[in-house]
């Protein structure tokens, strides 16, 4: 078991929603990311996975809780003290059209981290390094001086990846990196990420709502519901034997690309997502959970070790 790269303890984040009400985006989340692995963060939109991802690399300050990077606490650090850690963590974004500055050429986009951390002696070294990175991410060298508007969605995502790995980080948070792409381009990017993880021993926090992509790329998976983690463990274990009712309904709802195995929709979860402004007391899923009991309504179940993974449920399925 490789040691822990990043650990979060009881992270919470709330946003003001006017008239004194608070949106509980992330509540009391604890998780660990190990060196070299890909941890997936899955859940419906609005469950707080993006907020958690940004908090872990301090693009967003947590309201409560600490974050440890390779054992040292980074939540309390001042901007200057935190700077060396900043270089260790990078991010890849969802929208290929909005994540690249339209006014900068590809060269200056990829060179920006190199210049910020002055990793190259002079201009030629920078250009050379950029060409290397472009080559590594499958973007042709002649397009060095082109501008983002002259590339397709897939190519722009590759440039985003090149920029992220330029500073040689150890952790990359990928926020829905392939959701905006078509399936054929999506597979190319996923293959690229897998290759780079091996060659540059990177660790990924992979945020997505697409369960089939997550199953392929991740080693471990954490499922989030309304700001809390309800189940986390090895991806295969979670996918083959989901023990938290919500995970089961979630996996069940995924439309499998095989016309032969059609559900009759028996185990379909009804109802609406409750509002994060005043989440239900006790277990947040109890209002929609068919197995909810009085105990679920009163106490919020902590993550407990069951059947080789952690589940936050009084009556695991």
């Amino acid at each position: 078991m490789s040691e822990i790269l990043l650990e979060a303890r009881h992270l919470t984040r709330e946003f003001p929603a006017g008239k004194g009400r608070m949106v509980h985006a992330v509540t009391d989340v604890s998780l660990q990311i190990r060196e070299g692995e890909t941890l997936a963060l899955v859940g419906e939109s609005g469950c707080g996975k993006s907020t958690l991802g940004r908090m872990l690399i301090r693009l967003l300050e947590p309201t409560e809780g600490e974050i440890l990077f390779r054992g040292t606490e980074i939540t309390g650090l001042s901007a200057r003290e935190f700077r060396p850690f900043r270089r260790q963590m990078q991010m890849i974004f969802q929208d290929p059209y909005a994540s690249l500055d339209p006014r900068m050429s590809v060269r200056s986009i990829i060179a920006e981290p190199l210049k910020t951390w002055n990793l190259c002696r002079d201009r030629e070294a920078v250009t050379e390094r950029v060409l290397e990175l472009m080559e590594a991410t499958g973007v042709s060298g002649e397009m060095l001086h082109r501008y983002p508007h002259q590339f397709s969605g897939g190519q722009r995502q590759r440039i985003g990846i090149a920029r992220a790995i330029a500073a040689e980080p150890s952790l990359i948070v990928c926020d829905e990196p392939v959701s905006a792409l078509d399936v054929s381009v999506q597979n190319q990017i996923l293959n690229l990420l897998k290759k780079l993880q091996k060659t540059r021993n990177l660790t990924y926090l992979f945020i997505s709502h697409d369960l089939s992509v997550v199953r392929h790329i991740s080693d471990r998976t954490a499922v989030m519901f309304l700001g809390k983690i309800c189940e986390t463990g090895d991806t295969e274990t979670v996918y083959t034997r989901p023990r938290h009712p919500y995970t089961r309904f979630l996996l069940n709802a995924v439309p499998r690309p095989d016309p032969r195995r059609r559900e009759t929709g028996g185990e379909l979860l009804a109802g609406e997502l409750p509002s994060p402004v005043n989440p239900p007391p006790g277990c947040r899923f109890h209002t929609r959970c068919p197995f909810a009991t009085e105990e679920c309504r009163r106490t919020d179940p902590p993550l407990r070790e069951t059947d080789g993974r952690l589940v936050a449920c009084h009556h695991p399925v």
Partner: protein
Amino acid sequence: MEQNTLEISHLTVSFPTDRGGFRPVNDVSLTVRKGQIVGLVGESGCGKSMTARAVMGLIRSPGKVTGGQILLEGKDLLALNGKEMRSLRGNELAMVFQDPMTSLNPVVPVGKQVEEAILLHRRVSREEARKRTLEAFRNVGISEAEKRSRSYPHELSGGLRQRVMIAMAMVCCPRLLIADEPTTALDVIMEAQILQLMRQMRDRGTSILFISHNLGVIAQLCDYTCVMYAGRIAEQGDTRELFERPVHPYTRGLLGAVSSLDRKGEELETIRGSVPAPGSLPAGCPFGPRCGLCDETCRGACPEPREISPGHIVRCFHAGEVPV
């Protein structure tokens, strides 16, 4: 033989641009039988949405339909004038759009917007229209219909708003419902609920033309499927047969890419190259440059649709062959 709900033959839509113009929909033919869900699948920019809009007559200028025929239960929609077409839209022919966030008028309560659809096609009192709206809300599974109908779009969740759109489309019991990626903007659980609703409507006799880029959704919902590439239908056939025995290299590529996601650890299957820019299609078969089987004949001319088995039509000279 029972009357087909929708018959599209050789439909072509073209957009003039300062460089000669391009055709997002190019010689498309497909049929939707009564009570059948036909899927229209393909990657972004393949023309599936444009085909749907052509049927509804909602193509924005400067684009226009430049060829082909669209028969709704025998009536050619392209021959109708503005007024006749308007009397069909929302009545016999309805459409649901992709993004529930922006498809409802933000400053009008949702109930009113549905009532508007009724009052446009049925000579009924306002009170009756109100009753039918609440009735429609309940049919699409909206709880507390009374309270919801008075609220504004921004006060409802994505799923609820899409149900309102469906209620609005179904309130005049249309012969054909066109759904342009209705679940793309929704989460997987909400998507499942909407698909369930679609199945119930199909069982009640509504024919549906369902547009999506998600092969999983097509597999679970559609009886018959057409795969589009660069403005043409590359392959169409019964969904089960298409998924088991795809013959067009592009369909194979797509299905291979999706199914490889389930095989852990291996490298994912991809289709080399990228979708050609609409203005600059390659000569001959549009998929040529990305196809393993491509040879002189493919580069020479664009293959015509061929029926290789009942209901299974493909546009490819080497359909079914396996690259060596």
